[in-house]
C-alpha cells in the first residue's frame, strides 16, 4: 500500500507538473477546456470526499459554488483576489457547517431532496438580496488572465484529489465509510457520526467555494440564477458517479470522460449532444454501475472475489 502510494504520488506530481505547463502548449480555447476539466475534477473530488464516502448524496453542491462566487463578486475590487477567493471557500465551508447541522440528521432520499431544496432556497435568497440592493447583474472587467485562472484551478483540482486521498486513508474516511454502511453500528463502535459527517461536509464545501470564485472571474458576469443553477449540482453527481464515486481516480476519470465527450460532440452534433449525453448517463448506470474505475470502491484493497456471494441483507423483488 505505501509503496503503491508513493508510486501514485510520483505519477500525480509528474502529471501536475505537466498540466501546469499546459498554458505554454495550448491555445486559448483548449486552455479554456482544460480549465473546465480542472473545475469538474475539483468539484467532483470534493463531492466524492463527502457524498461518495458517506453515502449521503448531496444534490446541493451548487450552493457552495454559488456562495463562493458571490463572495468573490461582492469583494471584487474591495479585497485582493488571493484573499477573497479563499474567503469564498471558507464562507462555503461555514455555510456547510450551518446547513449540515440540521440536514445531516435526515438520510437517504430525504437528504437528497433537502440539499436540493436548500440550494434553491439560498439561490432565491440571493436573488432577492441582489434585487433589494438594486444590483442587476454584476460585471467584472479586468479579471486575471486565463493562464492564471487555469493554474489556480489546477491547484484546486490537485488539492481536492489530495484531500480525498488523505481522508480515505485517515480515520475520518474510515468513519465515513462506516456511516455509509450502517450508521447505528458505526456509533456503536465509537464513531461520533454527527461530528464526522459535519466536518466532512464542511471540508467538501471548501474547494467548491473557491472553484465558484475562480469561475466567476472566468465568466466575468455574476447572476444568481446562473451561479446557483441546480444543473451544476446534477452535473457534479453525474461526473462523480460516472467515474465511480469513492476513489480519487473515479471523479478524475468521470471528469475527463464528460469533458472530452462534450468537446467531441457539441461542435459536431450540437442539437443531439444533450440527447447523447443523457443516453450515455442511463447506459452507464445500467451497465457500468460501479463507474469507470470498476469495483475499486473498496476501502483498503481490492477484494478477492469470495467463494459465495449469498446475500442475506436485501430482498430481491424481482421474481
Amino acid at each position, binding site marked *: 500500500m505505501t509503496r503503491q502510494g508513493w508510486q501514485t504520488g510520483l505519477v500525480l506530481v509528474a502529471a501536475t507538473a505537466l498540466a501546469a505547463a499546459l498554458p505554454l502548449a495550448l491555445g*486559448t480555447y483548449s486552455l479554456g477546456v482544460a480549465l473546465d476539466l480542472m473545475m469538474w475534477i475539483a468539484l467532483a473530488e470534493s463531492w466524492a470526499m463527502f457524498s461518495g464516502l458517506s453515502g449521503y448524496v448531496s444534490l446541493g453542491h451548487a450552493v457552495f459554488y454559488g456562495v463562493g462566487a458571490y463572495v468573490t463578486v461582492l469583494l471584487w475590487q474591495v479585497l485582493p483576489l488571493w484573499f477573497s477567493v479563499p474567503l469564498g471557500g471558507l464562507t462555503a465551508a461555514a455555510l456547510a457547517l450551518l446547513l449540515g447541522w440540521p440536514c445531516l440528521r435526515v438520510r437517504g432520499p430525504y437528504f437528497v431532496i433537502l440539499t436540493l431544496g436548500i440550494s434553491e432556497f439560498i439561490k432565491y435568497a440571493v*436573488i432577492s438580496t441582489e434585487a433589494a440592493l438594486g444590483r442587476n*447583474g454584476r460585471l467584472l472587467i479586468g479579471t486575471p488572465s486565463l493562464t492564471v485562472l487555469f493554474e489556480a484551478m489546477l491547484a484546486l483540482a490537485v488539492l481536492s484529489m489530495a484531500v480525498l486521498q488523505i481522508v480515505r486513508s485517515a480515520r475520518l474516511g474510515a468513519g465515513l465509510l462506516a456511516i455509509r454502511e450502517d450508521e447505528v453500528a458505526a456509533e456503536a463502535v465509537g464513531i461520533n457520526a454527527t461530528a464526522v459527517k459535519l466536518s466532512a461536509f464542511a471540508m467538501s464545501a471548501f474547494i467548491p467555494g473557491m472553484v465558484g470564485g475562480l469561475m466567476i472571474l472566468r*465568466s*466575468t458576469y455574476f447572476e444568481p440564477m*446562473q451561479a446557483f443553477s441546480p444543473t451544476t449540482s446534477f452535473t457534479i453527481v453525474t461526473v462523480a458517479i460516472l467515474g465511480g464515486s469513492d476513489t480519487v481516480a473515479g471523479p478524475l476519470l468521470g471528469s475527463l470522460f464528460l469533458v472530452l465527450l462534450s468537446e467531441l460532440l457539441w461542435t459536431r452534433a*450540437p442539437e443531439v449532444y444533450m440527447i447523447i449525453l443523457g443516453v450515455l448517463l442511463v447506459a452507464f448506470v445500467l451497465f457500468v454501475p460501479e463507474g469507470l474505475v470498476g469495483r475499486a470502491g473498496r476501502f483498503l484493497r481490492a477484494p478477492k472475489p469470495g467463494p459465495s456471494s449469498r446475500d442475506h441483507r436485501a430482498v430481491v423483488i424481482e421474481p
Partner: protein
Amino acid sequence: MRLALAFAAALFAAGATPAAAAPPVKIGYAISMTGPFAPAARTQLNAYRLWADQLAAQGGLDVGGVKRPVKFIVYDDQSDFAKAPQLYEKLITDDKVDLLLAPWGTPFHFAIVGVLEKYQFPVVGNSAASVTIRDIKPGNIWFTTSEIPDRMAAELVKFMKKENVKTVAVNTLQLPFSLEVKKFLMPDMASAGLKVVVNDDYAPDVKDMTATLTKIKAAAPDAVLSLSYPPDSIIFIKEARQLDIKSPFQLVLVGPTDYLFTKMFGANLDGIVTMGHWVPNQPKWPKAKAFYNAYMKKYGEPPDYLDSALAWMSIEVLQQAVKTAGLDKAKIRHAISTETFDTIDGPVKFKGVENVITPTMFLQFQKGRPQIVWPGSDATARFEPKPEWTK
C-alpha cells in the same frame, strides 16, 4: 439541419460567382438553442437564419466592395450564461471568425462584454439594453435598441402623463432588465407626481399572480405596468383578464410582440402597451415591409416586433459597416461608431453604446396588430384606452 442546407446553398451559390476564389467570410454566434431560454431566443435565431438564406441567395456578403461567400459557425450556449463567454472566446480564438453576431438576451450580452473587450472584437448587440453596460463604457458593443432602461423610464412617464395617468401599479420580475427598468421608473414617476398604489416584485418561477392582481384590482389604478418576461407576461395577461382589471393603461414589458401572444390571446391583446420601436407598416421605413414579408414567407408567421426586428437591425448595421470597412476590426469599430446606418427601423447612429437616432417608442396592440403609439412624431396610430377584455 436547415442551417447546414443554408451553408451548402451559400457555398454553392458562391461557386457560381466570379468571387469564388475569395475564402469564405466566417460569421459566428452562440445562442440558446436548448434550455430554458431557448423558446425566447427563437425569434432572434430566426432572423439570423433568414439572413443566412438571403446571403446565400445573393451570392455572399459584400466585404469592402468584394462579394465573398459566407460560412456560419453556430453554437448552442445551452441557456448557460457561463458558457457564452467561453463560446465567444472559442469563436474568436479557435474558429477565428471574421464577424460575430450577438447572443440572445440581456444577461448573455452582459456575459460576453468581458471577452469582447479582451479581444477587441466588435459586436452589434440587439436583444439587450442596460445602463450598467453603458456605464462601464465598453468599446466593442452597441445596442440597436433605443429602449435603454433610463431613457425608456423617462419616456414612459411622459407617455403616462399625457394619457392622464395619476395612479400606477407596478409588478416587477426579479431579473436584471426588468429590475433596471423599475429602478429608473420609480424616481421618475415620483418626481412626475404619479402615485404608485401597488409595488410588488416576484421571483422568476412564479406560477400565480392572483394575490398581486387582486390588490391591483382593488386599487383600480390608471396604469398597470407589468415589468415581465414572456412566461410571466402570459400569466399576467391571463389573470388580468380573469380578474377583469380595467385600468385604461396596461403595459406588458417583454413578450406581446412575439406572435405566440397573438395566437394565444387574439383580441385580448388589444390595448396592451409594450416596449418596441418597430412595426412593418411605418411608411418612413421602406425596408420594414420587405423584412416582414421575407420573414413571413420563411416562417409562416410574423416576426417578433422586438427581438426579430432588433436582430435584423444589428445585421444591417454590421453588413453596412463591413461593406465600407472590410473585415478589419478597428475599421469596423470605427465605422459602427461613426456612420449612420439605414435599417428597417429607419436611420441608426451610435453614440457610445447607444442608438441615438431612434426615439424610445411604445407599441400598442390595436385590432390584433401592434402600432407605434408613442412618441407622436413616429406614431402609426393614436393610443386608445384598454378596451374591455372579452368575456
